[in-house]
């Protein structure tokens, strides 16, 4: 069972940079797991410690219950897909793909069969004799995946594998990689900074910031139940409204926003009387209408900007207390609003999240680097 366990792993570069800070994590057998976070958050370093390419300063790494801290990369039984593909330029596609079986001195016939099968899986068998410089970016990444699979490992580590590809190919390839991982019953850890990519293909996701893991959960949990302000902002998008708790009801808290606006929000551990809080509300959680509809949490405002984004329309609305909020509505169906139009926005308390106001300030908490 290729289960991966990390216990209190720390990696420093020099005296000042803590790339991975006391990370503990468990990746289950046959799970498609993603590590996401902004650039420089330590996700690639963490992946490379699992692969054995970086030695942790502290902590333990287990694969299949075996401590592998001192096991070299070639003996960890992993496949690794690099962002830059790292296809050997002096070998053709077939030799690249069969490199793993050959260096393990597997029988020539078996190596050839594996090479053929994996190339067929990634739909590149016809290009078996091409050299890397004759392939497109998408093809090179397919070959890189095939090479990692042909080595016969049950763990696949992917370091921003789609980062260098254009959007259309990226979308196609991400589902293809997931299909292969699931068909072959592999355990995969996928590093990306693209939250949409991680949401689309992962069973579970870990969100990292400054070397630490902030939250681990399914895509649904991270989107619907973010535990931290940074996660609420990094997974999807959120509006943040600052206020103070002025009342407590059964499932909701009453929060007074700037300009003495009172709204009801979902109760949380931050819901103490008089506590300074931040409400996170997703742009798509807002309703928008022209007049009052006697709903809870109605906020009057003026449309400042309208952006057509294809499937959605994005509105920037200045509400009466001078806070600005973003509202996203589907472009097909529903009303459209114009710039300078007076509107009313509303949201249901259960679609909001209440967080304690961060001690270092909201902007610092949301900083990506």
């Amino acid at each position: 069972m290729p289960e991966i366990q990390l216990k209190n792993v720390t990696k420093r570069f020099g005296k000042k940079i803590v790339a991975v800070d006391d990370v503990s994590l468990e990746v289950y057998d046959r799970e498609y797991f993603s590590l996401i976070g902004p650039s420089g958050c330590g996700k690639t370093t963490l992946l490379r410690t699992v692969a054995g390419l970086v030695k942790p300063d502290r902590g333990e790494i287990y694969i299949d219950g075996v401590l592998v801290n001192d096991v070299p990369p070639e003996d960890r039984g992993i496949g690794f897909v690099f962002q830059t593909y790292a296809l050997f330029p002096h070998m053709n596609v077939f030799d690249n793909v069969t490199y793993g079986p050959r260096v393990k001195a597997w029988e020539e016939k078996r190596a050839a069969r594996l090479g053929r099968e994996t190339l067929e899986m990634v739909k590149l068998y016809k290009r078996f004799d091409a050299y890397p410089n004759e392939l497109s970016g998408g093809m090179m990444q397919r070959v890189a995946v095939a090479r990692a699979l042909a080595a016969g490992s049950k763990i696949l580590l992917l370091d921003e594998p789609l980062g260098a590809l254009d959007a259309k190919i990226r979308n196609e390839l991400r589902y293809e990689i997931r299909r292969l991982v699931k068909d072959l019953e592999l355990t995969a850890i996928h590093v990306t900074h693209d939250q949409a990519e991680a949401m689309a293909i992962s069973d579970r996701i870990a969100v990292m910031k400054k070397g630490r893991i902030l939250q681990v959960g399914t895509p649904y949990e991270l989107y619907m139940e973010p535990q931290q302000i940074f996660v609420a902002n990094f997974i999807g998008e959120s509006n943040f409204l600052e206020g103070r708790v002025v009342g407590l009801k059964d499932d909701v808290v009453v929060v007074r926003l700037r300009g003495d606006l009172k709204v009801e929000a979902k109760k949380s551990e931050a819901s103490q009387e008089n506590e300074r809080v931040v409400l996170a509300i997703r742009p798509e959680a807002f309703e928008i209408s022209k007049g009052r509809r006697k709903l809870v949490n109605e906020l009057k405002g003026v449309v400042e900007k309208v952006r057509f984004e294809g499937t959605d329309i994005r509105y920037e609305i200045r509400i009466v207390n001078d806070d600005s909020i973003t509202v996203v509505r589907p472009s097909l169906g529903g009303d459209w609003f114009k710039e300078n139009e007076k509107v009313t926005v509303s949201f249901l308390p259960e679609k909001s999240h209440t967080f304690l106001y961060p001690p270092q300030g909201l902007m610092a908490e949301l900083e990506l680097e």
Partner: protein
Amino acid sequence: MPRFKVTIFDELSSHRIITYVIYFCAIVFFFGLILIPPIFGIGLKWYLVGEMIENAELMSRAVNAILASFAIAIFVSIIDLVAGIPTAWFVARGKGRWLNIIDTLADLPFVVPTVALGYSLLLFWSEPQGVSSLFGSSLISPGWLLVILLHFVFSFPVIVRVMVGALFDYQRTFEEAARTLGASPFTVDRTVTFPILRPSLVGAFVLAFARSVSETGATIMVAGSFENGAIFVKNMKDMGQQGPLVFVSLVLILISCVIFGAILILGSRLRVPIRHVWPSIERRLSSKSVTITRDTLTMLVFFLLIIVPSLFVAFPAFTAVMDGTIGKAVSSSGIWQDYWSSLGLSYFVGGLATLLSIVAGLPMAIMIGRKRIGKSLSAILDILINIPIIVPSTALGASLGIFWTNFAFVPEIMLLILAHLSITYSYFVRSMAAAIERTDIELENAARIHGAKPFTVFRTIILPLTKYSLLAGAIMVLTRSVSETGATLAVVSQLRTVPVLLVDWVKGTAVQATSSDVGLGCGILVVLSFTVLLFLKLGVGRKSVY
């Protein structure tokens, strides 16, 4: 630069015709002064070869000398690769500040003028002051073995320098990918790293080979009665025998060009067998104990065969301080008067050759680096530029002398400058063309789009980004010129540069110099050369040297 000059140059550079005139002049300069006289000049006297063929004894001596030149060059280049690659690996892949010291020490034989190196090795291996004192007799007498040791020592830094640069440029992701696929470090090096670094390996081999075939001054010092091609040419010139001189020079030039062509063609086609892997053996070869043994052996060879013998010249130099020789040197009395004028001549010729190489070499480097005259023509120029480096300098000097004296009376100083220019120009162009090629062309395009004229683009983008390579190239050219002996011996009869003078001192042909005199003479040259290296290291920084 004053503003108005920039404007004039900008205006001129924006006319395409001016640019092409500059490129045309650079090509004429290259063919007219650098390539044709030193390479094809010898052909003007081809009829003298007849005399040589009739003299069986001389013929046999000439053939043996030529064979010795190439045999030593090939052998030395191979053992240099064997010893130099682990050293380069050690420097590029190791950790710790002290590796910088090893890295700088590896340059030592490169910077010490070869005559000083030759004298140092002679003292260390053959003279009573050296390691021979431990054995009671000369451990290695002057002859072919000492020539091999000498050539090994001065070609070694070429391999280390090229390979360290290549290893720094090399993307280690390839190695990491191979490791994650199950390859042991030894398998990775054999099947991935070496095949990818093959062009650098071939390049390093060619440079070490060329350096060995060309070297004359130091070889004369340690050769005893042994004769290779360069020494044969020098001996024939001393004896006034033009036939054998022309024959050997012609053959050396032809064979060098053929070998260079063969390496160019075969080097790109050579396939290292990488398909088969022996995991258990290769794993054992990757083990820590094997790695430690390899590194220890590498360092032993490095210090015992290269560094200590190279630095041994310091002993007589120190003796010179004690026994009053330094007083004679400072007061310029006796033989020292010649020394100082030779030193002045060496640096004058070196400085002028460097300046001319920069002025005439820059347009050529741009043409090659940016493929300004089309891909094919630029590629041809790129190959031709290597020929003066490949051709043995003695033959090159002989050919150049014959060419110019055949047409007109050319003063000896002019011949000397032209000979040095022929050798140094190619080193400079190669270094600059590579630097220009590495500079992203989009930077130039961006500057042009923002309104910069070609001259401003060169002044504000290309020059700042390649200034370190320019400086490094210039210093390399100056050092090479100051060390040069073979071509110098071939073109001069009156003038004496400092390496030629030191060879005379050691051989005792003209004057009787003591070992303190020679030691101090070499020491002064080494100190001056180190000042130049220090300037390079401080002004240019470690990275840009490559």
